[in-house]
C-alpha cells in the first residue's frame, strides 16, 4: 500500500470524526443560545428543513430562523444525539442521527417540560478544508408533554 492510499484512508476517518464534531458543536451552541455561531456552521447556500417549523434557504435566512423562531420555541433545551451514521465521499458527506431532547416550552398556562424525539438526515460539504452543513433536515417523531407521552399527545396536542 502506498503512502497516498494510506493518507486517503486516514482522511476519511478524520472527516467522519470532524462531521460528528460539527454536529455536536451545533448542538452545544444551540443549547447555549449562541445563534450567530450556529449560523457560521452552515455553508452560504445551505438549506435547513425543520418540519412544522419551516424551511430556510441560505445562511442569512437560517440565522434569522434561529434568532427569531428557535429562540422563542423553547426557553431551555438539551439536544442529545444518538446513532451517528456518517458517510464521506470526498468533499461531501451525509449524516444521520436520532435526537432525544428535553426542552422547556413556554405556554399560556406556564412553562411545560417536553420530550422531543426525531431524526436528522443531513448533508455536509467541505469548504476551504472545513466541514459545513449544506442541508439540515429534521423530522420530528414526537413532541410530547413530560407527563403525557407520545401515545396521548404525539405532536403538542395535535
Amino acid at each position, binding site marked *: 500500500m502506498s503512502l497516498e492510499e494510506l493518507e486517503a484512508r486516514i482522511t476519511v476517518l*478524520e472527516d467522519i470524526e470532524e462531521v460528528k464534531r460539527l454536529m455536536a458543536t451545533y448542538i452545544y451552541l444551540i443549547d447555549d443560545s449562541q445563534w450567530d455561531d450556529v449560523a457560521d456552521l452552515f455553508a452560504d447556500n445551505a438549506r435547513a428543513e425543520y418540519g412544522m417549523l419551516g424551511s430556510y434557504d441560505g445562511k442569512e435566512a437560517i440565522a434569522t430562523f434561529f434568532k427569531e423562531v428557535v429562540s422563542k420555541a423553547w426557553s431551555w433545551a438539551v439536544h442529545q444525539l444518538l446513532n451517528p451514521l456518517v458517510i464521506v465521499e470526498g468533499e461531501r458527506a451525509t449524516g444521520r442521527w436520532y435526537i432525544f431532547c428535553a426542552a422547556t416550552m413556554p405556554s399560556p398556562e406556564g412553562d411545560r417540560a417536553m420530550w422531543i424525539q426525531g431524526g436528522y438526515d443531513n448533508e455536509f460539504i467541505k469548504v476551504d478544508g472545513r466541514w459545513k452543513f449544506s442541508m439540515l433536515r429534521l423530522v420530528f417523531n414526537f413532541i410530547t408533554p*413530560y407527563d403525557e407521552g407520545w401515545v396521548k399527545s404525539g405532536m403538542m396536542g395535535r
Partner: protein
Amino acid sequence: MSLEELEARIRVLEDIEEIKKLMASYCYRVDVFQMDDVVDLFAENAKAEYGPLGSYEGKDGLATFFKEVVPNTQSWSAHQVLNPIVTVEGEKAKGTWYLFCPATVLNPEGDRAVWIQGRYDNEFVKIDGRWKFSLLRFTFNFGTPYEEGWVKSRMPEE
C-alpha cells in the same frame, strides 16, 4: 506526506477513540459500583468537581466520593453519555459530553426514580501511554423525580 506525518494523524484518531473508551469505562464501572476500578481511571493528582455533590482531589479524595458518597446517594444508575467532542493536543486532551442518566436515589421515604441530565467538561492526560482523567467537571442541568420533570422540580434541593 511522510510516514511519520501519517503516523501522527493516526495517533490523534487513536487517542480520540481511547478517550471515548475511557469515558465509557468510567460510566460502566460507576454503574456496577466497581469503585476501585473507577479511581484507577484517574491520574494521581486528578480533581473531580460534581457541583452540589462537592469537589474531590487526589486518589484518596476520589475514593471517598465513589466509595462513600455515591453508594449513600443512589442504589442504581445507568450513565448514558452523548455528544462527544474530544480534542487531543499531544499528551493532553479535553472532552465534552452530555449525560442522560436514570437513577434510583435513596430517600428516607422510599427510593425515588430520578432523571439526571448534565454536561461533562473533562481534561485528560496520557501517562505511560495510557489516558487518564486529570479533571472531571460535571454540571447538572437537572436531577428530577420521574413523576415531576425539570419544570416542576429541577434539582432535589429546590
